[in-house]
């Protein structure tokens, strides 16, 4: 239909305001990351007095950024991989089988998503300690403990989203595979997974992002060998001088992997979100 004049005005003004609100902080991040230290200590200037790449060099030595980066990568990739694998099995069961406890399981998994993390942080910490004492498996302050914790954070959404993806794949395909003698796992692997690839990709990046950005559990469950970026970036502000330019260059570098992944896959994420929201 034809848009009235007033709407075009509202849209123009509205989009300008929203763009400014979004862009100004991003602009501050990018320009601050190439400013000399003197610039970030004095009154704020919109334009850098000089352009320098020093913050990008120095940020690695001011704090142990590389270690934190590796820790975050190990934990986030591990959590994403396990979360997706486990969600694939669970979603397949929910989508393809009618069994007792199906609704109870769905409800339980979904409801864990509304629990505030603070609620189970301490008990989980104590459970990990107790497990460690009893079995010698170190879950506290180790990568594996964080991986196990984080994989459950993305699990509900992953299962929810994959179920709606799997539901859209005709069951006839499964049955054909069964007739050819494939078992459930083979059917999942050969038939269902290939058809749900975009959903799996979107769920993977979601799981990765969840782990990459988590702060609360990382603040309690890491030690100096397992500190993740979320906690490690705070080191910059505990120095005698706050290197804001280095904070911003480090922030930019650690943001790039998730922003690129997210933008590449946002279309599929949207599909998953609406499928969930409409049901």
């Amino acid at each position, binding site marked *: 239909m034809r*848009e009235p004049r007033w709407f075009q005005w509202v849209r123009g003004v509205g*989009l300008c305001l929203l763009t400014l609100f979004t862009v100004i*902080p991003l602009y501050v991040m990018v320009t601050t990351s190439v400013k000399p230290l003197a610039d970030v200590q004095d009154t704020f200037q919109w334009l850098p007095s000089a352009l320098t790449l020093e913050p990008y060099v120095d940020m690695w030595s001011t704090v142990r950024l590389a270690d934190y980066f590796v820790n975050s990568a190990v934990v986030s990739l591990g959590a994403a991989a396990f979360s997706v694998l486990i969600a694939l099995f669970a979603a*397949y069961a929910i989508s393809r089988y009618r069994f007792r406890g199906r609704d109870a399981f769905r409800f339980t998994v979904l409801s864990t998503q509304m629990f505030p993390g603070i*609620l189970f942080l301490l008990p989980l910490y104590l459970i990990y300690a107790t497990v460690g004492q009893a079995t010698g498996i170190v879950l506290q302050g180790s990568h594996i403990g964080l991986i196990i914790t984080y994989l459950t954070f993305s699990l509900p959404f992953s299962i929810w989203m994959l179920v709606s993806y799997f539901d859209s794949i005709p069951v006839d395909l499964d049955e054909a595979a069964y007739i050819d003698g494939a078992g459930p796992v083979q059917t999942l692997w050969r038939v269902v997974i290939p058809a749900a690839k975009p959903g799996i990709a979107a769920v993977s990046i979601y799981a990765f992002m969840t782990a990459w950005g988590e702060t609360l559990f990382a603040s*309690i469950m890491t030690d100096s060998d397992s500190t993740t970026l979320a906690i490690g970036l705070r080191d910059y*502000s505990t120095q005698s001088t706050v290197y804001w330019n280095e904070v911003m260059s480090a922030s930019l570098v650690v943001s790039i992997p998730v922003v690129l992944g997210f933008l590449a896959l946002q279309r599929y994420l949207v599909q998953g979100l609406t499928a969930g929201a409409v049901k």
Partner: protein
Amino acid sequence: MTVTSTASTAPPSGAEPNGSRARRPRISKRSVPYLLLAPALFFELLVHIVPMLGGLWMSFLRLNQFFLREWMSAPFTGLQNYRFALDFDGAAGVELFQSFAVTIAFAVITVGVSWVMGLAAALFLQRSFPGRTLLRGLFLVPYALPIYTSVMIWKFMLDRSDGMVNATLSDLGLGGERFWLLGNNAFLSLTVTAIWRLWPFAFLALMAGLQSIPTDIYDAAAVDGAGLWQQIRTITVPMLQPVSQVLILVLFLWTFNDFNVPYLLFDQAVPSSANLISIHIYQNSFLTWNFGLGSAMSTLLLLFLLVITAGYLMLTSRRSRNA
């Protein structure tokens, strides 16, 4: 997983002769879904359900630093922690109540503003024009950034009296010495930072919701002479209701439980005007080492969230039955 596979493939040494014939295939079909669910269930139990029950139990204990190592033998004190947390004549009760009020205000404002901004942006970008894809991607960037980097940016902008926000305000003639991260200003800083990161999510969900509305409804309305504003009011907003309901509930639960933004923005010393409930519980648990009290507050928080969610579910199911 290894346990099941070795158990099922190991030869049944010493099994009775008829046993092998009577046995069904190695995995009975009925157990397949349960086996598929087992890993998910195991980790959910380990990380969420069992610790939640543990937390409930701890809320009845006098659990402080002296009993932390032997937490299972901490003395049972019944409802004492709850009585202390809810004693509005005592310091803890007053603080809890204040923190609760701050959290409600924070969640309502953040979710409301995010929803309006998200809806506006979704409507503005509904029709294609040059640069639409670019704007769409741009608006999503704050949501894609890791939380700590977005909070760091805002912290830098709001930090110091000559930081970006203050410097710009005085350039515009609105200046004055102000410290945005202290006192009552802290609430505003917290809310703006949270909205900046959160509204793209509302935009994303509402944009997808808009796409599911068939266009011929608009055409029919236009034939009947409905103007654009009328169409938005009578078609778009009602048709977006299912998406909006889920969206608002999810956003509310997220912001209500937010820990990251205040923790990263203010470090340990969160001003009382921005002291969200999860920060309050964190301080009671990990700074003053009063874990029993922290657990009691957590349980109260959970009860509140359950009531909210149950109310929401009742409301939506009644509406869908009436529809």
